[in-house]
């Protein structure tokens, strides 16, 4: 008999045996440490559908707070085959291919703006996409022959972005959002979409968001064309911009799916 292997239709956590479903959960409950608090932790985890919850640690971290580390078995199953991971749909192209395609399809350089909005002073993310140096060996947009890439930096007011987008007739605006506490990023990202729409620019521009807490799904929800998370490389972004800009050229005026 060999070790039973996974059924992609019924995926479960692997601890040290197939489908044992072992998971580790940690959290703090606002209860003074006691057998009662430990039982509360067990019930809290049980309520998640975790079997055989075992409280490995019940540490009093303040008079009325206890930190717990709990192990147990999550009997839940995921059908990996059925998953349509929300992913940015754009072929992976090299810098040269992209430059070539732009020349071919547009016969001009595409104007791409980059920034972080309002109070967000984190520029390293947007710099990683724009600066020639790029990210993990992949050159930044400013190195692309056929991209007129302008990095506006961080802490740029929404109005400023919109003004420059109009003046420069930008093809794409790339926004970096890093500070997410109390959903502040949602606020700023939405403000930008609203103002672009108010100015009738939204449809003409490929709008992309990125940042450590951004993913494609969230960006779509906020009215962006795409969202990129941790580890994004510039070329993937450039390829997407090319893709979208082309669509817009074909169907001017109306936003693509």
């Amino acid at each position, binding site marked *: 008999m060999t070790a039973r292997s996974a059924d992609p239709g019924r995926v479960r956590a692997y601890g040290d045996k197939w489908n044992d479903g072992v998971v580790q959960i940690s959290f*703090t409950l606002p209860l003074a440490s006691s057998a009662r608090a430990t039982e509360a932790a067990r019930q809290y985890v049980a309520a998640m559908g975790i079997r055989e919850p075992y409280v490995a640690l019940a540490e009093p971290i303040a008079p009325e707070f206890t*930190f717990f580390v709990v192990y147990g078995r999550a009997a839940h199953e995921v059908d990996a085959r059925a998953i349509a991971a929300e992913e940015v749909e754009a072929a992976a192209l090299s810098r040269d291919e992209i430059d070539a395609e732009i020349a071919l399809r547009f016969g001009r350089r595409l104007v791409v703006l980059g920034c972080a909005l309002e*109070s*967000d*002073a984190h520029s*390293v993310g947007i710099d990683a996409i724009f600066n020639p140096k790029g990210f993990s060996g992949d050159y930044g947009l400013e190195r692309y022959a056929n991209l007129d890439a302008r990095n506006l930096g961080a802490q740029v007011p929404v109005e400023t972005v919109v003004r420059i987008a109009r003046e420069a007739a930008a093809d794409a605006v790339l926004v970096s959002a890093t*500070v997410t*506490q*109390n959903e502040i990023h949602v606020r700023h990202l939405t403000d930008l979409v609203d103002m672009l729409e108010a100015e009738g620019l939204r449809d003409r521009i490929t709008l992309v968001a990125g940042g450590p807490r951004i993913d494609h799904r969230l960006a779509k929800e906020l009215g962006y064309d795409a969202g990129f998370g941790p580890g994004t490389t510039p070329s993937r972004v450039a390829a997407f911009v090319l893709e979208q800009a082309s669509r817009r050229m074909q169907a001017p005026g109306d936003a693509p799916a």
Partner: protein
Amino acid sequence: MPPRLGLQAETISRCRRLARDVAEAVRRETEPFTTVSTERSILRLLGVDGVDADDVPVPNRICDALLAAGKLPRGVSLWMGSALARGASDVSEAALRLSRPEGARDIEPHPRWREALAPHVGAGLARVRENRAERERRMARHPPDELPLLYAIVATGNIHEDVLQAAAAARAGAQCIAVIRSTAQSLLDHVPYGATTSGFGGTFATQENFRLMRAALDALEDELGRYVRLVNYCSGLCMPEIAAMGALERLDMMLNDALYGIIFRDINPLRTLIDQRFSRRINAAAGVVINTGEDNYLTTADAVEQAPAVLASQFINESLAKDAGLEPWQIGLGHAFEIDPTREDGLLQEIAQAAAAREIFPDSPLKYMPPTTHLTGNIFRGFQQNALFVLTSVATGQSIHLLGMLTEALHTPLMHDRWLAIDQAKTIRANARHLSDEILFAPEGRIVRRAREVLAGAERVLDGVARIGLFEALASGVFADTRRPREAGRGRDGVIARDPDHVNPFLEEFAREGAGAAR
């Protein structure tokens, strides 16, 4: 006694001389000016506080009115004194008058303004001195603190949650509590008012928030048998005002960097360098320990390459601080453990840099910042880096240890993230208590050579800065590859050429007190 590298004393003093030249040039260039924020700080020290119907702080109203009336160049002191001499029953009535456009327009200088103002200057100074004495009394009641001091941050955005979590941290062993500011408060040209409950990535620095946290920490003193230090940020457009508020509410430490606002917040260089001086004057008088922000350089650039720039900046911050009257024990110099953990022999370089800072600034507390840029969603790996950070901190005799969070890459600290960090630091600090006495560095070895290299690099940087001057250096991007021209950046319009008869009575007092003696 931390292990020694045997760095050349001559090189070190040459660096110090260069930095002093830089600082003196800055003073000459900034002395002709005052700023709205400096004038507002004077008002706050005189006891002016509160906001008007539109939530605009009274100090802002007064300065704006006097500015509009073309009267600010002579300084708020003259006009407050005159208002009092002309019958204003007290400071708030005088403030009320001057905060009205017509009040500011019509006020005439009064010959006896100084006498009228004197008692209020005295009252402000008395409160600052009393707070300092109070701190010393409280500290004297307890055994000396274990070093390095464990410094924990709270950053919920809600002062009440902050208080709850700060108390938990203090009980767990934190010796310093820093309330992180709401993002980019440095860009506000006024200080928000009252208790605040919604900040982003931090909680607004307001005098009421200072008071609430101070009271919460004082309330723990007897239970814990130690005094818990309170820290906030004294940088940005309101640098000196926050220094004043801190002096009035007995904060113990202030992040107070001469260049941070310029480089990382694009605040006007002139404005910042004028403000940093008065803010540090106030901190000096208040017995506050400042923390410089060199760690920030390492968050955008490689920590190995930037090491010389960090050291150079420490020398400059030190001399600007001394120039403003701070004693060495008040000058907390910042640096950080930010080398890529996957780098071969990277730990040796961290040790070299930490030991070098200790050897070069023997009388100043060193504020050691945790790994941040190289932390990822792997919270276990993060906890491991923080363990090596604590050990390096203990082994090289650092003074103020900012606790690293295993979730640094994810969110502002959760209750238990902070607890884990405190427990980690306490455990390793005791487990390796005398390690610094027991290890020596191989002569001419990798660690010693690295330290020398960094010092030599710093000297080169300082040499360049001294030659062209700090403003020119900032303009040409010497620091963090960021160009900051003298006249550009936020808040330039708040810089005002002083009238020949402009007075800052507090500066005069501080000078008399000889706080400046250290210079």
